[in-house]
């Protein structure tokens, strides 16, 4: 799936950059994501991801590695995980680019990934839609986190 969004955030770039590295707060913004842990500062993190499509529940440990970081500007992540119960695998690349806009910022999100295994049977269309909903929800929560 491939999702691109431009999310307005009421924070200047430096403050937004700091927020992005506040792992517990950022994990709280990702729908279905809980228990983020730092494995290697600024390099590797783990989280537990839960999602639901109708009667099918997905729960998997995510391995997140930072593949690129330019302060106040760009963050690239690789997230991978496997749900052994339903045999589904997720592999995603997420690129976050901060664009200054006056006193605030626009966070450009580009998430590209694959869902493999049985969940793929749901079809690309539904998975794409779920991914879009997740990114939109992330944006809404991020805006609230930035304000509060």
């Amino acid at each position, binding site marked *: 799936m491939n999702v691109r969004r431009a999310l307005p955030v009421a924070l200047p770039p430096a403050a937004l950059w700091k927020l992005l590295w506040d792992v517990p707060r950022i994990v709280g913004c990702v729908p279905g994501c809980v228990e983020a842990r730092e494995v290697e500062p600024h390099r590797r993190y783990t989280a537990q991801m839960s999602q639901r*499509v109708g*009667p*099918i529940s997905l729960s998997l440990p995510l391995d997140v590695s930072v593949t690129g970081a330019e302060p106040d500007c760009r963050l690239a992540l690789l997230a991978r995980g496997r749900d052994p119960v*339903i045999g589904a695998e997720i592999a995603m690349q997420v690129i976050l680019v901060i664009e200054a806009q006056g006193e605030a910022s626009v966070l450009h999100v580009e998430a590209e990934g694959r869902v493999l295994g049985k969940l793929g*049977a749901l*079809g*690309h*269309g*539904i998975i794409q839609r779920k991914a879009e909903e997740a990114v939109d929800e992330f944006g809404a929560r991020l805006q609230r986190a930035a304000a509060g």
Partner: protein
Amino acid sequence: MLRPFALYRPTTLPELGDLLAEHGSDAAIYAGGTELLLLLKEGMIRVRCLIDVKRVAGLDAIASDDGAITIGATARHRAVERSVLLRERCPLLAGVAAHVANVRVRHVGTVGGNLAFADPHSDLATICLAYDGVVSLWSYAGERQVPLTEFVLGAYETARREDEIMTSVRLRPWPRGTAGAYLKFGVYERPTLGVALAVTMSSAGQVSEARLAVGCVGPRPLRLPDVEQEMIGATAEDLGDAAKPLADAAAEAAETLADLHGSADYKREMTRVFVRRAVAVVAARAAGRDLHERYPHTVVV
């Protein structure tokens, strides 16, 4: 082989409510099992127990109630197909039920199971939309009625809460002078597209009410009220002449999603093709004729 589970068979709704409260997401509601058992076989879901609802009295009743028709959640597709009451009052629904899946699924699968599972590639929700279906949901907190348009939220997603069970769907039969058709298209086991169209003709021979529902091509079936509006006031002949612009409008309004049945564009195009055909069939029926057209890989009800 399925993973082991316990099987409970409540005979009343409160008993069912107790079981749901006790087991929560470790339980699955089980009626015909034609979708549930497949999910269990595939390992897509895991449960500790099944709650068989077929022994709850009255849950399979098909009855007339104050002008409306109520179909109980555990009524089998076969019962819908053969119901004298439905053939008389909702003939297109009975007709569509005769073409759901295959004869074995029709004997075992239930209306409630079908609607609550909300597989986009199915016929029942689409045709029930054309009958202004309203779903009844029961829980300990009480009963509530949810129009089908608000009940089906997306692919495999409904407004049913985990502590609720769907007990019935209520339909508004069409008045006399309504001509309708259901066109079902596809080469696979499940339909690729379903179009339900019904127009009520006034005594002056003009469309006074129109119902157009398109299903299978998107995450959920939809009524197309803007296109319905364009049919109002038309004579049967006008309707036939307007097949192409109505089809174009429907293709524009439809929500399509790519999957193994085809791309979003392909489904949009098929919506155009089949709404045009549905209008032609219904216009002919409204004029007292029948087109008897045969379209490839299509069932015309």
